[in-house]
């Protein structure tokens, strides 16, 4: 076999030496445009797991790499004049230049042909090769030449970042957050030998512009960053190496091979630098490709096998990297967090580390977070509580209400059965404020008669320890449907009732057309909601939850997709929120206990409510006396694009809680206690609806 490797970075060199070692009679050529000592970037990081793979693949280079490593197990977080150290995270780092020199030497010793300072202009220069390996990076020639077969997608991240070196001895992976008059800047720094570290500075684009960095020279950028991070640098210097401010690009490609051409490392895929996995993934690609070539005689089968093995792994890292990048893009929303919660949130940002993983790595930090959480939840003096349950079992105070734990449950018709689950807060099924506001013939209506039944039930539930929120709503255009045992949103064929809504739009193609509500209907319904709240007040309920979500009547006013009104109740967000806020005000005036509102944080449809607008909606609800927002997603319209991934509602809860500054209930495929503890400790919600699989 004759291999032509284009690109002499870690991926290309490692592939070359492993391929040559596997079959010394093969011809392996590596072509690199730069001289052997010219490497850009500073250090690279590996996990223990990667080291194991390197050891098994080539012991000689592994030993040499091991001698040049910096090892550490701590993460330092500098935030608001405090430093929090988390231990138990094993990392190793090495100078990129040292790593490449080790790989180059090993290549030469094995008989790999290395051609430096050779610029490749056309992949056809290697027509004689049996396999052409594109290891020439995200902008490489090989990827560009065969783009139509690889089907690339490139996502541009909005923040600006720059790689510096620092002559700063670090003994931890270091995050620094510093706000100045231009904005919030953060540093990702890690050591790669005893004296030097990689020092990446990242900031939002507007901060970068305000700081004048758009037009700054390299020297000016260095001076700015040295001054900004003077307290941590302590007089040490930053070093430049073609250090330019850029946006990170995440590259995904449907395929990594075509004919006798295959991609490795950054030429195949990239993952945001904040999870530090670029070189690791690249070298693992090389190992997998050489293994696949050994297993298969047929080249096509080998390349296919390589891709099948690596793509799922890379996708997992890319997903984690996107979460991590998104955290850093929006980190200023956590600026009010206590440093302990800030640290927990940072460490669990990519979702790869959860409460349980972090407890294994750093039990002391998690104990500190638990204690702080319980102290804050119970109003105890900080630092006094030493023995605490995990956050899931901390109480939640809302006004005079104390919910005994942080699990909320969407209860069915049998409230008492729901109470036996141990959930701290039971949210009742949908109670309609009127007969014609029912969803199905089975939907209960709140009235004086119902109040007596509820009172005795709720009293028994209180004795069992749970609290109850009554869910109140009006189905609007989603009314007059069959019981949901027969399907959801299936219109009644007989025995139905007349519907009304913000606008004359049917919910499904076969559903009845609702009447557009008149000014008189609106003012009447406001009174009806207030009466329902008064009826509920006699029911010993602990809280009221107004359902302004899921395309029911009030939700229909909020979304521009379902509100086409031209009066003062349609158009701008202010107008679309007018009726919902009138309902809220009227209920608030009669209901003194905690008042929750459920909203769909996204319509999952073009032109509908998105997370940005839901933050504004939540802020308006808060200003009108809402105590907590129950965050759900979608169902505004019949045809939307839902996303049912794990924890799908949590990002919305996180944004609303921390940008609108109001307590939230998170929902969306939250299935484990570990999920609940992670969400709560990281400050992404105050209560979680736990979805137990196969629960009635």
């Amino acid at each position, binding site marked *: 076999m004759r291999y032509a490797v284009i690109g002499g970075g870690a991926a290309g060199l490692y592939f070359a030496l492993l391929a040559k070692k596997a079959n010394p009679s093969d011809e392996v050529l590596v072509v690199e445009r730069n001289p052997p000592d010219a490497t850009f970037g500073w250090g690279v990081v590996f996990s223990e797991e990667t080291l194991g793979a390197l050891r098994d693949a080539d012991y000689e280079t592994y030993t040499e790499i091991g001698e040049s490593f910096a090892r550490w197990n701590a993460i330092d977080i500098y935030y608001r004049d405090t430093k929090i150290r988390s231990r138990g995270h094993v990392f190793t780092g090495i100078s990129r230049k040292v790593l490449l020199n080790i790989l180059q030497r090993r290549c030469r010793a094995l008989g790999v042909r290395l051609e430096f300072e050779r610029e490749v202009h056309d992949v056809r220069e290697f027509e004689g090769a049996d396999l052409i390996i594109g290891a020439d990076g995200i902008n490489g020639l090989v990827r560009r030449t065969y783009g139509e*077969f690889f089907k690339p997608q490139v996502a541009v991240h909005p923040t600006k970042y720059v790689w510096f070196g620092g002559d700063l001895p670090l003994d931890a992976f270091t995050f620094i957050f510093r706000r100045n008059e231009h904005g919030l800047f953060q540093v990702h720094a890690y050591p790669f030998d005893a004296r030097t570290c990689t020092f990446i500075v990242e900031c939002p684009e507007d901060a970068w512009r305000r700081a004048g960095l758009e037009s700054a020279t390299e020297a000016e950028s260095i001076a700015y960053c040295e001054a900004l991070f003077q307290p941590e640098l302590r007089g040490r210097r930053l070093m430049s190496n073609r250090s330019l401010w850029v946006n990170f690009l995440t590259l995904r490609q*449907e*395929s990594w*091979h*075509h004919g006798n051409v295959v991609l490795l490392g950054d030429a195949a895929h990239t993952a945001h630098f904040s999870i530090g996995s670029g070189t690791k993934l690249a070298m693992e690609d090389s190992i997998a490709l050489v293994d696949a070539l050994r297993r298969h005689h047929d080249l*096509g*089968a080998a390349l*296919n*096998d390589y*891709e*099948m093995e690596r793509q799922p792994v890379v996708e997992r890292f890319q997903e984690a990297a996107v979460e991590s990048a998104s955290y850093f893009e929006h980190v200023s929303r956590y600026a009010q967090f206590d440093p302990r919660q800030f640290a927990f949130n940072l460490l669990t940002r990519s979702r790869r580390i959860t409460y349980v993983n972090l407890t294994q790595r750093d039990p002391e930090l998690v104990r500190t977070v638990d204690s702080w959480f319980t102290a804050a939840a119970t109003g105890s003096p900080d630092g006094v509580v030493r023995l605490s349950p995990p956050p899931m079992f901390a109480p939640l105070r809302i006004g005079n209400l104390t919910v005994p734990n942080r699990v909320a449950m969407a209860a*069915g018709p049998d409230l008492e059965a729901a109470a036996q689950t141990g959930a701290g807060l039971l949210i009742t099924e949908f109670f309609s404020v009127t007969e014609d506001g029912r969803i199905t013939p089975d939907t209960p209506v709140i009235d004086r008669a119902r109040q007596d039944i509820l009172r005795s039930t709720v009293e028994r539930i209180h004795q069992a320890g749970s609290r109850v929120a009554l869910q109140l709503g009006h189905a609007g255009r989603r009314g007059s449907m069959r019981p*949901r*045992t027969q*399907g*959801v*949103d*299936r219109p009644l*064929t007989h025995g139905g009732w007349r519907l009304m809504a913000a606008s004359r739009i049917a919910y*499904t*193609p*076969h559903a009845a057309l609702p009447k557009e509500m008149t000014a008189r209907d609106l003012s009447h319904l406001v009174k009806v909601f207030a009466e329902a709240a008064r009826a509920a007040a006699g029911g010993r309920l602990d809280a009221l939850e107004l359902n302004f979500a899921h395309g029911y009547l009030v939700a229909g006013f909020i979304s521009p997709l379902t509100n086409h009104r031209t009066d003062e109740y349609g158009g701008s967000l202010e107008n679309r929120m007018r009726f919902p806020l009138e309902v809220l005000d009227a209920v608030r005036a009669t209901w003194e206990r905690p008042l929750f509102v459920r909203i769909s944080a996204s319509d*999952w449809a073009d032109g509908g409510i998105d997370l940005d607008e839901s933050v504004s909606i939540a802020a308006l609800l808060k200003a009108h006396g809402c105590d907590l927002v129950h965050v759900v*997603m*979608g*169902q505004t319209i*019949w*045809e*939307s*694009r*839902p*996303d*049912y*991934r*794990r924890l*799908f509602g949590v990002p919305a809860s996180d944004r609303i809680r921390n940008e609108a500054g109001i307590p939230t209930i998170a929902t*969306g*495929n939250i299935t484990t206690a570990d999920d609940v503890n992670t969400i709560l400790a990281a400050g992404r919600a105050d209560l979680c609806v736990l*979805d137990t*699989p*196969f*629960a*009635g």
Partner: protein
Amino acid sequence: MNIGVGLPTSTSGISGQLMLDWAKLADAGPFSSLGVVDRVAYQNYEPFTALAAAAAVTRRVRLATMVVIGPLRNTAMLAKQAASLDVLSGGRLTLGLAVGARGEDYEVAGIDSRGRGRRFGEQLEAIRDIWEGGKIGPTPKAPGPRVLVGGASGEALARMARYADGYMHGGGPPRAFAAAAAKAITAWSDLGRPGRPILWGMGYFALGDGIADAGAEYLRHYYAFTGPFAEKIAAGNLTSPGAIADFIRGYEDAGCDELVLFPTVSSVEQVERLAEVIG
């Protein structure tokens, strides 16, 4: 978990007799269902016709479309055809429906593929009403055929949760099924539907010496519309009893209710060999 077997309607050189022999063996064997695929621009038999033929020579097995491309058919005719098959077979139809993945099927049928998702949703909303309405007969025995919906998108899962009885997965390793099943269950509970969806999965097999290549060749051809992904599907063909046992275990662990294994070579021995493995 029930295990069904695919009826060979899309592999090459299938005679009517072979298909009937296959169906009889499946009915006698340990299989709970016979599945058929649906394509237009391909050398395969129309699914309802093939299942009607199988119905005539079988008494026990369920007859499952996996899946019929709904928007290619007029809703009233689709409902009538499905009801006819269900009633004639003694209530044995499981109707799998989806929008399909190939633009070419829409092109040759002269049907606009744009808006197919919405039209499919309308079909799902209507089909049970047609069966229950009494105007378009025959009227299936209540509650009518089970309807399962396939498709990986959030839209497909929401339609499934609103109108269907369960989810039909399109194939892949057990972990892919498990991920899709978790989303299907999530969609179901998010829409406020009581209970949980029925979950069906599918796989491909070729058993016997020297036929693995022919099986892989068929899958490459059948899935050519997926581009390079066809290679991966071909590589996933189950070609040994061990691989089938692992696959079954993986699906069972993932909560699958019924797994249907489709043949990739046209030989009646295949159903016998599979019966031996299933036991």
